[in-house]
């Protein structure tokens, strides 16, 4: 007699099979595509590391909804403020996640949202400052159950 445990193991294997089959043909973004997307934002300007803190949980159970917070060190004055914050991923189907446009009225260059993360990867946040410089910060996340592997189980 199939026990509940056996049934769940079998169901899980079946589900995993469908998921892998369905995603094998899907084009996922690559780190190169992420760099291309970043270059579309920054142009030829150099991107320096620092000043940007990207906060995400290091270990993700439910990658359909992962909290993401970006904070940029900036006085947020009319003369020196963060104009935009962009978030990019390496392995989601698309490299872009969100672009936020701020100004001195924000008071604090800090935003938060919830995102989908396809796979274990590095997420990068880029801040564009009012003086035209770009700064980046990144976070490495490990996904134990992926968001984009559930096709076929809708």
């Amino acid at each position, binding site marked *: 007699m199939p026990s509940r445990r056996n049934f769940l193991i079998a169901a899980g294997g079946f589900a995993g099979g469908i998921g892998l089959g369905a995603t094998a043909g*899907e084009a996922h973004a690559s780190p190169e595509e992420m760099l291309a997307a970043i270059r579309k934002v920054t142009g030829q300007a150099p991107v320096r590391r620092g000043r940007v803190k990207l906060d995400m949980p290091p270990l993700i159970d439910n990658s359909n909804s992962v909290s993401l917070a970006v904070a940029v060190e900036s006085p947020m004055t009319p003369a020196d403020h963060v104009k935009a914050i962009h978030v990019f991923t390496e392995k989601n*189907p698309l490299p872009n996640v969100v672009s936020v446009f701020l100004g001195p009225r924000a008071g604090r260059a800090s935003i938060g949202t919830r995102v989908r993360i396809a796979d274990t990867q590095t997420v990068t946040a880029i801040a564009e400052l009012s003086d035209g410089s770009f700064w980046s910060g990144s976070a490495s996340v490990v996904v134990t159950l992926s968001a984009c592997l559930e096709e076929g189980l809708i």
Partner: protein
Amino acid sequence: MASANAVVNVPATTRRGEIIEIKALVRHAMETGFRRTQLGALIPRDIIRRFVCTYNGVEIMRAEFHPAIAANPLFTFNTVATESGTLAFQWTGDNGFSVTESAAITVA
């Protein structure tokens, strides 16, 4: 029925110059356009593309969403309380999606 689809959290009263945190949540499936049905048909993309917040008519924050934003998007940001008035929020997206919400703020 904007109020049924969006919730915003703004402090009702604050002091001038104070930096306040604003949280905005909207009901939306954020269908990525990458998922398929069991028959293999691609489910078309249906997401919120843009979220704008204005403070007494002046834009203070604008965000562009991509499919990687989770369903029922929550967005947190800050602003400096300058004067009493209204914070207006608008989400627009695919298939003519548009939801607005507003919150009154009293600045002492």
